[in-house]
């Protein structure tokens, strides 16, 4: 069996957790939900830091715990990497010492992997003490340290939550680069949708100790039934490639499976892959190709489904473009009726803003 299977049941005063997760064995799976919904507890259970009343943790062929067979491996015998919310570096060891602590115990000897250091941009920090590092640097070292122990699974508990917006922007590109190189599964906890849009391959929505919905990130975000759809945050994530720049107007052309979309200029070279987030509130619909519109991005698409209660003011429309990309559009119920929108209709989506998530 491949993949990661995790099942935890836990009763505490005022809190109950009951989750079953089946995650792919590569890529980043994001646990997303409001504070206090039990995301971190799931991560701690997976690591063996918190003991669930009833639990199963299996990764590929390796079983770390199973209450049926009374199997239980303590944390130090589980080959995992854990990145805590605040970078908890050992204050008595230099960066090099912190990394060597991990690599020695992970069976990699004293010299941590140089490529990893470079990838995370910490190769120049090796002789510094943790107290002399910035918050972003510390967190990067903590991520490198977790990976130095040659884990089978990387667990990350809101690694950016303790950083300010600037530090977040500084560290996200490193995470994204890492994401493309890592061959192990990553379980990433966050309550920031930006991070989901940038990093997630697989998305698990959690609320009050339960899993609301889980699946590939595109599917879950484009779903009309998810808690996200009901919120102001409803949006889709598209994979794109930089295909050109218009320096005269400060725009960048992005190729999404054959469809050209324009965004405000991003400083990436042509050919670079990145992700776009398109908010449902930024997409409007027209029955005919609009002429003389100020909106640059106009894409023909088929209506797949229309969600929302019959007495709500607004409703959410899911579209599929010719190339298969999905979009969400938030429109008023009156517009829906005036345009007589039905699943299967071909319409034009006007996209007001395309946000490259960087």
């Amino acid at each position, binding site marked *: 069996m491949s993949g990661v299977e995790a099942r935890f049941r836990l009763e505490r005063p005022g809190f109950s957790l009951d989750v079953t997760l089946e995650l792919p064995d590569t890529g980043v799976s994001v646990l997303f939900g409001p504070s206090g919904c039990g995301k971190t507890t799931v991560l701690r259970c997976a690591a063996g830091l918190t003991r669930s009343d009833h639990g199963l943790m299996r990764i590929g062929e390796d079983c770390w715990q199973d209450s049926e067979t009374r199997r239980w491996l303590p*944390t130090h015998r589980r080959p995992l990497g854990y990145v805590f919310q605040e970078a*908890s570096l*050992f204050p008595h060891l230099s960066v090099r010492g912190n990394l060597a602590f*991990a690599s020695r115990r992970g069976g990699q000897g004293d010299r941590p992997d140089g490529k990893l250091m470079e990838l995370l941009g910490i190769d120049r920090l090796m002789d510094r003490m943790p*107290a002399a590092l910035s918050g972003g640097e*510390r967190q990067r070292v903590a991520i490198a340290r977790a990976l130095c122990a040659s884990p089978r699974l990387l667990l990350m508990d809101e690694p950016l939550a303790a950083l300010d917006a600037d530090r977040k922007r500084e560290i996200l590109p490193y995470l994204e680069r890492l994401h493309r190189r890592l061959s192990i599964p990553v379980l990433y906890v966050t309550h920031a949708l930006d991070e989901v849009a940038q990093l997630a391959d697989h998305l698990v929505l959690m609320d009050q100790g339960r899993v609301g919905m889980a699946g590939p990130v595109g599917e879950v975000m484009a779903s009309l039934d998810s808690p996200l759809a009901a919120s102001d945050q409803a949006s889709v994530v598209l994979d794109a490639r930089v295909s050109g720049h218009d320096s005269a107007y400060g725009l960048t052309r992005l190729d999404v499976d054959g469809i050209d979309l324009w965004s405000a200029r991003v400083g990436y070279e042509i050919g670079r892959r990145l992700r776009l987030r398109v908010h449902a509130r930024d997409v409007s619909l027209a029955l005919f190709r609009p002429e003389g519109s100020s909106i640059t991005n106009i894409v023909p698409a088929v209506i797949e489904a229309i969600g929302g209660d019959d007495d709500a003011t607004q409703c959410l429309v899911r579209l599929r473009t010719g190339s298969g990309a999905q979009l969400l559009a938030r429109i008023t119920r009156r517009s829906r009726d005036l345009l007589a929108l039905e699943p299967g209709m071909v319409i034009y989506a006007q996209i007001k803003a395309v946000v490259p998530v960087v």
Partner: protein
Amino acid sequence: MPDLSLATEDWQAIALTARLAAVTLLILFAIGLPLAWWLARTHSRLGSLVSALVAVPLVLPPTVLGFYLLVLLGPQGPVGRLTESLGIGLLPFTFPGLVVASTLFSLPFVVQPLQASFAAVSERMLEVAATLRAGPLDTFWHVVLPLSRPGLLSAAVLGFAHTLGEFGVVLMIGGNIPGRTQVLSIAIYNRVEAFEYAHAHLLAGCLLVFSFIALLALQFINRAVSTTPAMLRGGA
């Protein structure tokens, strides 16, 4: 002009005292490290009980402790019978007897600073170590002890200095046998009794200077530590 060089007897007392303090310190650490670690982490009621027991020598007159030890270790006492049946013989008025007494008497001076610095090591540091595959003992040696360095130094200085200076317990359990159980503090007492104030001054002065230097060194170490708190606590 009185003779101010130390007599053989004084040298014997100094050597014996140094040996006693060193051996006692070793044993104190062997017992104190695991005991302080357990006390720092346990939430059980037994922990409070043991904590109080360890602290008893802080408030008890040393002669009281010495008296009970003498009874316990003597030929009629349970421990005395045990040591005799094991062929070790009786402990009172021997060097091992002094070591036992000093260890009990100085235990709080070692356990309390250790316990305080162990308690200051955050749970998070232990969790981090576990996620990096360090087992409990590995974590203790390579994370807890380095993070507790100021506590270890305090414990060592206080344990050693306190053993050097004790009087009452040693007198009760060891007596006053030159070269065998006559330690520095008792040698000073003898000199005073014999009105040999010059010798008493010399010995007392040595002890005073040594204790002062030890405590001064501790102050400097602690000051160096407290100006860089993040280096030694679990907060980075």
